[in-house]
């Protein structure tokens, strides 16, 4: 019984932490991207280089954040990897000839890049001003 209670508490804590991490960041896209929402699987696939389109067929080009609290929160909530492992995954694609490294920018620059480049998709701290982009609801 004690084990069951402990497991439940740990699972609840993990869920709350993940939800808290998700609450700190928003996924944004250029208005040219048709979709208004994005699945968690698509977030993971697009930002790890496994896919360049969303379920509805919208083509997207990811932009990453430089390492910092918002980046860590995003990786924890959606990718399940730390920053080193995340970037090592991208470098594997580069060194094996399967892809290019996305740009890594600060919050403000990422928001501006997404606003001005068709198909761009990124993630930023929720508090960063993000006019000219659409916020995708992660389902």
């Amino acid at each position, binding site marked *: 019984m004690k084990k069951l209670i402990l497991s439940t508490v740990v699972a609840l804590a993990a869920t709350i932490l993940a939800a808290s991490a998700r609450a700190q960041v928003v996924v944004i896209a250029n208005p040219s991207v048709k979709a208004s929402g994005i699945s968690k699987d698509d977030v993971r696939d697009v930002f790890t280089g496994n896919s*360049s*389109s969303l379920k509805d067929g919208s*083509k997207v080009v990811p932009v990453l954040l430089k390492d910092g609290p918002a980046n860590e929160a995003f990786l924890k909530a959606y990718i*399940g990897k730390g*920053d*080193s492992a995340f970037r*090592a995954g991208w470098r*594997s694609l580069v060194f094996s*000839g399967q892809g290019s490294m996305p740009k890594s920018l600060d919050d403000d620059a990422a928001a501006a890049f997404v606003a001005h480049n068709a*198909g761009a998709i990124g993630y930023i701290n929720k508090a960063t001003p993000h006019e000219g982009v659409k916020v995708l609801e992660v389902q």
Partner: protein
Amino acid sequence: MKVLTAAVYGCVLGAAATGYAQSLDDLNIQIHGYATQGFLYTTNNNIFTANSSDGSAAWTDAVVNVSAQPIPKLRIAVQGRYFLLGNSGDAVTLDWAEGDYKVDDRLGVRVGKVKTPWGLFNEIQDIDPSYIWSLLPQGIYPILSRNSFLAHYGGVVYGTFKLSPKLGKIEYRGWGGEGLYGADNGLFLDQTQSGINLPNDGVKGPLWGAAIHWRTPLKGLMVGASDLKDNQWSSTATQAGLSGTMTLSPNSQPNYFALYEKDKIMVAFEYERNWNNELLQFPGLPDSVQRADDRSWYAMASYKLTEKLTAGVYDSQDTDHQAPLGPPRYQKDWAISGRYDFNQYLYAKVEQHFIDGTTQGYDMDLNPNGLKPNTKLTVLKVGVSF
């Protein structure tokens, strides 16, 4: 095929030059690289053409990668490498040089000198920053033959089909072109040491193959299979003033594999069978045939203990069913590994191997008193990537 590769190489340089005239941002020109330095120590035999029983630091890899993306669907890239392991390598070689046109997620084409995507790890077996291990299982990914198996001249067609959420995704790859086993390939170590010389560009011939990866509905689980086929390859060979031929018979190399990666855990399994008959013919001498039927498998697992520290273990076994009974017929290798990432650029690895059998990685020049049936191998490595 080399003309095609040269054209790709020229395009990269051209794109780079144009980039300075226009805007580097527009062409998305990127330069990346990594370098590793390893140290080997064995308790018994000398391994990988190094004086490892005395401790050897003769293990260096350095890679530079330049790419440009002039339009969203087209990427042009080239990668060069310096590789040294014991008495092998010590040269700068072209890893690959390709043009990659991706129509969409379902269809893309790479041409030039391209990575050959067989097995679970071949595309990344040389990319040390990608994984925890210092040495991948040698039965399937022998490091002394690595440079020959990494890439071929020709093309790869690739893509991903999303099935329904209940069925997951299918990734496919098909390839064809010309393969080349360089004269320094570990496959020819015995021949080289017995005085048989191959031309510098080694043995070459046509190859083709296909791979399927099924990303199953169970998150993190992928199962797959690939088959690499070679036609008959041949080359001139010389021995003690005689000129003859070396012929490799048509070869098939099926692999079956599974990979599970979720959160902090990685588990993988792979099985491969590789038939290889090698015929040497010199005028006035009887024909010499070497037959090999290697059946190899490994099971591996790793766990991320902290954000920066990962630990892993694998069991790898390789048996040559054409070899005489005894230690030269097999190799069993237990490996325990640890990796520490100081930051996103710098890491260190430590690995301990318990090797039983001698079918992989040994040469007799450095083991003149014969091979002992088992050895322990300690590996230390430090790497940097950008």
